[in-house]
């Protein structure tokens, strides 16, 4: 088991920042390539005209998920040393709702707003400034939120644990959800293109 390489001590903290830069470049590259730096394109998701957001995100999730499973199975990647985001049920539910509303209002998300700003979009810059302000204000009033913020903690809690099934079963379920969703998305986009005047 040699990966995660940083956890195995293969490179230093400083080198990890170089890795961060490279990873970020790849991240930004593929976001721009797929048009996720365009607020108009992203907004199309929520009017069922252009479901690129769903296709890109779910393909990425499925790709990484399968990679993690099989590299773990092959003994190459030590799954126990990957940082899995912890679960706080209510805060993440409430945070998700707020985030979705903000996403619909602005047409961009934190990552894509940076891509938009980097490609000349002024509205991208506005979202970046807005996000910064939102996080700042929330942080300043954190003590008022702290109780809610820390509520309903479940620690590292995964779907296989929730449903008491093997990880592979969930992996298959997500793949099927994605593949089925993609076919539905293609149908929806075709119908939307047929009915619009564009």
């Amino acid at each position, binding site marked *: 088991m040699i990966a995660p390489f940083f956890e195995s001590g293969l490179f230093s903290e400083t080198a990890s920042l170089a890795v961060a830069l490279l990873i970020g470049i790849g991240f930004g590259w593929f976001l721009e390539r797929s048009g996720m730096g365009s607020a108009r394109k992203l907004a199309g998701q929520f009017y069922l005209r252009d479901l690129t957001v769903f296709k890109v995100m779910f393909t990425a999730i499925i790709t990484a998920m*399968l990679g993690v499973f099989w590299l773990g199975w092959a003994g190459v990647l030590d*799954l126990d040393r990957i940082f899995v985001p912890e679960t706080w049920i209510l805060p993440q539910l409430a945070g998700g709702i707020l985030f979705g509303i903000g996403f619909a209002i602005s047409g961009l998300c934190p990552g894509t707003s940076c891509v938009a700003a980097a490609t000349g979009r002024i509205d991208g810059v506005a979202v970046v400034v807005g996000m910064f302000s939102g996080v700042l204000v929330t942080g300043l009033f954190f003590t008022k939120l702290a109780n809610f913020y820390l509520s309903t903690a479940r620690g590292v809690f995964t779907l296989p644990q929730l449903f008491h099934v093997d990880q592979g079963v969930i992996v*298959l379920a997500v*793949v099927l959800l994605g593949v089925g969703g993609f076919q539905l998305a293609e149908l929806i986009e075709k119908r939307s293109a047929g009915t619009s005047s564009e």
Partner: protein
Amino acid sequence: MIRASAVRLLAIGATSLGVLAAVAGSPRKDSSPSIDVAALARDVQTEADHVTAIELARWIRDRKPNLRIIDIRDSAEFARYHVPQAERLPIEEVVKASFNPGETIVLYSGGGAHAAQAWVLLRTRGEKNVFFLRGGVSEWLDEVMNPQAPAHLSGQARDEADSVAALSRYFGGVPRQVDSAVPIQSFKAATARVRGRGC
């Protein structure tokens, strides 16, 4: 178009890898760190973790399919006496062995403590069909090889005692009635040689 076939290839690849993942079950082959202690405790509480010697004897006699009886004592003790059809595997080998999904594993030791420990280890490794003989070889000798029943029994008790006696004879054991003329001591002496150190 190259792109369309590339996408189709991705879809087929993802679906295949997903199906294989479900078949593989878990990507971790060694004991999963998420030991479900609650489930193990429940099995202990409900006594779903062990079998009695009588139950084991019936399994052997009835040729229960895919039954694997594992003696975790050392070879000297095993040579002196072992449960019929048992195979010997020291505890360190047991936790490394791989078992087929359909197999029923029964672990036993001299007195049962080591077998109970091996049970916990195999369960945390993910094996589900594992049991241990709670009283170990001692229980086998007492309950199956030399079962004792009161002479004056009737009804259901009588039937059960007869059933156990028949089971015992199947294995070449000697069932006894408690208030018979033959003192129990001689049988205890006979079995003491076989019992060894226990645990």
